[in-house]
Every structure is written in C-alpha cells, then in structure tokens.
C-alpha cells in the first residue's frame, strides 16, 4: 500500500468514525409500553436527578433523553425488565443559585455575553476556565453544599413509591452533583422505620463526583469528563473513570466539549450503551424484589 493510499485510508476511517458518532439515532414514534397496558404488571419508578448547572428545562430534557434511550433499548432487554411497566420522574436538585454564580462568573470574569454563556453552559471553554471551575467545584466537593431539605424531599418521594399502595421498585439515575443527593437520599430512606425491603431502591450514577454509589450501585464516569477529572484532583477518592465518549464529534461542540453533559453521555458511545446496560442489570435485580 502506497503512502498516499495509507493516508487516504486513514482519512476515510476518520470520516467513518466521526460519521458513526455524529449520525443521530433514528427513533420511530414512541409506542406505549405493553406492560403498562396490564394492570397487574409490576411497576418501576425511574428517577432522573439533575446536576449542578442544570436548569429546570434542561432537567426535563435530560429526563426525556433518558426515557427515549431506555425505551428504544427496552425491546432487547431481559424478559423480566420488559415485563415491568417503567414510569419516569424527575427529582429536581435546585441549582438556580449555582447557575446564577455561573452566569455572573461567565459575564463578569470572562467577559462573555449572556448568549455565549447559555450556549456553552456545559462546554470546554467554561469548564476549563479557572474562574468557572471554582464556581463548579464548590458545590461538587463540599458535602455541606447539598441541602437537607432537598435530600428529605427526594427520600420521601422514593419511600412513597416503594410503599403501598404504589408498591413500585425505584431506580435513580443521577447526573453530576445529583449523585451526592442520591447517595444521601438512599441513606435517608433506609435510616427511617419502617425500613423498605432491601434492594427496592437502586442507583445508576452518571458523571459522579462521589467516592461511592450507595446500595452497591453501578456508575459511569467518562475519561473525557474534564469537570470530574478536575474534582478528582481535589478529591482523589472520587470514583475513577470507567467509560469514554470515544472520538465523538460532540467533543467539538461548544455545548458538549467539556465531556460532562448528561445528553452527551447518552449520545456518545460506548458511554450510552454502558449506562443502558447498567440500568438493565439494576432493573433485573429490582425485579427479583417485592416492595410490598
């Protein structure tokens, strides 16, 4: 093979690699889950818990993305998972104060326009800026930055789902700082009497700044996640990366280039597939437990 051919081959491979990551997934119109048509089918409540710079609208979209990707994969999941009716919820982590800090830091310290800050809220330029990292690291590295009222509210929602008459298993999928809330809420749920049955609440963490996932839960943090990598430098006990976004073109985008975006985690491979596999195995475990 000549040098020119080798170079041409490399360019073609690059185009294939980039194209494979860039092409949007095709979704058919979402159909109702067949198990949800059966009144006696077991129910699960799947919660998304948002991270620190996530506004209400982004939380809705992140939860929607999770639902879309999950339902798209559901037909190929284990029979015990398909036999359950999965209901999706949000547990909001109120981060407007942090976004305000973020906005002020972006505008005042970096001289960005409002439009630029909103466009690059999770992007490379802001995530790697010293001024912004300070704003983000404070709530992510200090346990006292998460508020007890939110933990109590989240835990109450999980307990209500598990208890009669709902009798639902609960799977929590937190992103970023949401992992700190989910771990604390898990402790809260099982520290109160009557204790729910063990194993009725599972966590699958995404982009976690924590050093554990309660209940022996699973997690995925990307090696290209610049924010969590920054946290790890401050807190070496932070769970190590165990996935990546490969050569995803998302890393070129001002919106996703910090490698921390939840939408990015559920778009790039292999992180998307691995998160869905973690959800599936957690739901298989949940299926074997009777909440009531």
């Amino acid at each position, binding site marked *: 093979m000549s040098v020119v051919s080798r170079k041409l081959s*490399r360019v073609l*491979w*690059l185009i294939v*690699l*980039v194209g494979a990551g860039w092409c*949007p*997934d*095709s*979704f058919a119109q*979402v*159909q*109702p*889950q067949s198990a949800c048509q059966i009144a006696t089918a077991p129910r699960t409540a799947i919660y998304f818990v948002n991270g620190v710079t996530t*506004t*209400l*609208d982004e939380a*809705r*979209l992140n939860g*929607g*993305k999770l*639902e*879309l990707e999950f*339902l798209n994969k559901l037909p190929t999941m284990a029979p015990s998972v398909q036999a359950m009716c999965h209901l*999706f*919820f*949000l547990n*909001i982590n*109120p981060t*407007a104060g942090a*976004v*305000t800090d973020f*906005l002020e830091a972006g*505008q005042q310290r*970096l*001289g*960005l*326009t*409002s*439009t*630029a*800050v*909103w*466009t*690059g*809220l999770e*992007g*490379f*330029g802001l995530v790697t800026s010293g001024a912004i990292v300070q704003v983000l690291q404070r709530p992510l590295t200090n346990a006292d930055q998460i508020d007890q*009222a*939110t933990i109590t*509210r989240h835990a109450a*929602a999980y307990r209500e789902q598990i208890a009669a008459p709902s009798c639902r298993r609960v799977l929590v999928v937190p992103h970023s700082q949401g992992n700190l809330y989910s771990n604390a809420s898990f402790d809260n749920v099982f520290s109160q009497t009557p204790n729910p049955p063990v194993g009725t609440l599972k966590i699958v963490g995404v982009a976690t700044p924590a050093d554990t996932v309660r209940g022996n839960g699973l997690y995925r943090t990307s090696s290209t996640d610049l924010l969590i990598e920054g946290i790890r430098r401050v807190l070496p006990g932070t769970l190590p990366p165990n996935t990546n976004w490969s*050569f995803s*073109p998302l*890393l*070129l*985008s*001002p*919106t996703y*280039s910090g490698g921390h975006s939840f939408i990015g985690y559920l778009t790039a491979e292999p992180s998307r597939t691995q998160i869905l596999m973690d959800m599936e195995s957690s739901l298989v475990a949940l299926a074997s437990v009777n909440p009531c």
Partner: protein
Amino acid sequence: MRRWCQETGVLVMTIAALGGLLVSCSAENSPSASSTTESIAGTDADANGVRDDVDRYIDQTYADQASADLNKAVRQYAKAVQSSLLDADSPPLSLTHATERFRALECLMARRPSEFHRIFVDVRAQLLNTANRSEAYLKADDHVKTQTIPLLPADQWVTACQS
C-alpha cells in the same frame, strides 16, 4: 496497528481541541443581540407572545416546509419562556409557565427526538440574550424548585403540541 491508532487518536483529539477552541472563541466574540438596557419584554409588535427578534430567528432558522412542525414547536417553547420572564415575580404564575415549558419541551422531543437538545440550546440562548432576561429566567425557576411538575410519558409527548 497500535501506532496507527495512537496517531489517529492524537489527530482526532487535536482537531477536536482546535475545533472546540475556534467554536468557543467565535461564540464568545459574537456581538450581543441586545443592549443591557433593553427591557425584559422587548418588542412584540404582532402580540403573539414571542419577541420579534426571536420570531425572526425562528422563521429564518426553520424556514423550509420540512421544518414547519419544528417552527411551531420552537415558537411554543419561546412563548412559554417569554411568559416565564414576564411573570418571574409571581410564584404561582411561575409554576403555571414552567408547566407550559415542560409541555413545549415534550412537544419538541416528540418532533425531533434526536436533535431536540441542540435546538433547545440555540433558541434559549436567543431568548436569554441579556443579563436581566437571564436573571428573570433563573428567578422563575427558583419559585418552582421544590414543586413536582407532572411529566407526560414519551408515547404522549406529541399530544403536548399546540398545533
């Protein structure tokens, strides 16, 4: 093979870093659409609940026939955000408008399940193009941070579309 992979990886990451930097720089240096003295409401000459500059953005960005459904979905979200900004001092109205925003976003996800986030990021950046509009948006969020807003399941998102 390993060397090929390493070289290719370095090449891709270099392109990524340079590309990201260029895009970031262009975003940072783009001129502000409005001065900081502009009111939260802005100008809505046709009184359709959406600022005229945002109307123009939507019509220019989603102009073709194939984007007609998207044009309406984005405008539905824009109208809900504009209401949120104007009523940001009122906790009950903030909850009402946050619910309207959720329905609009569900419509957007139904219309473009693979592209909705990029579309959302772009139109929200247009809507919140001044500091006072951004602050009003966050203030409205703050009123409803402990509320539970009902969600539509994915198979019903399309019913959230107003037209």
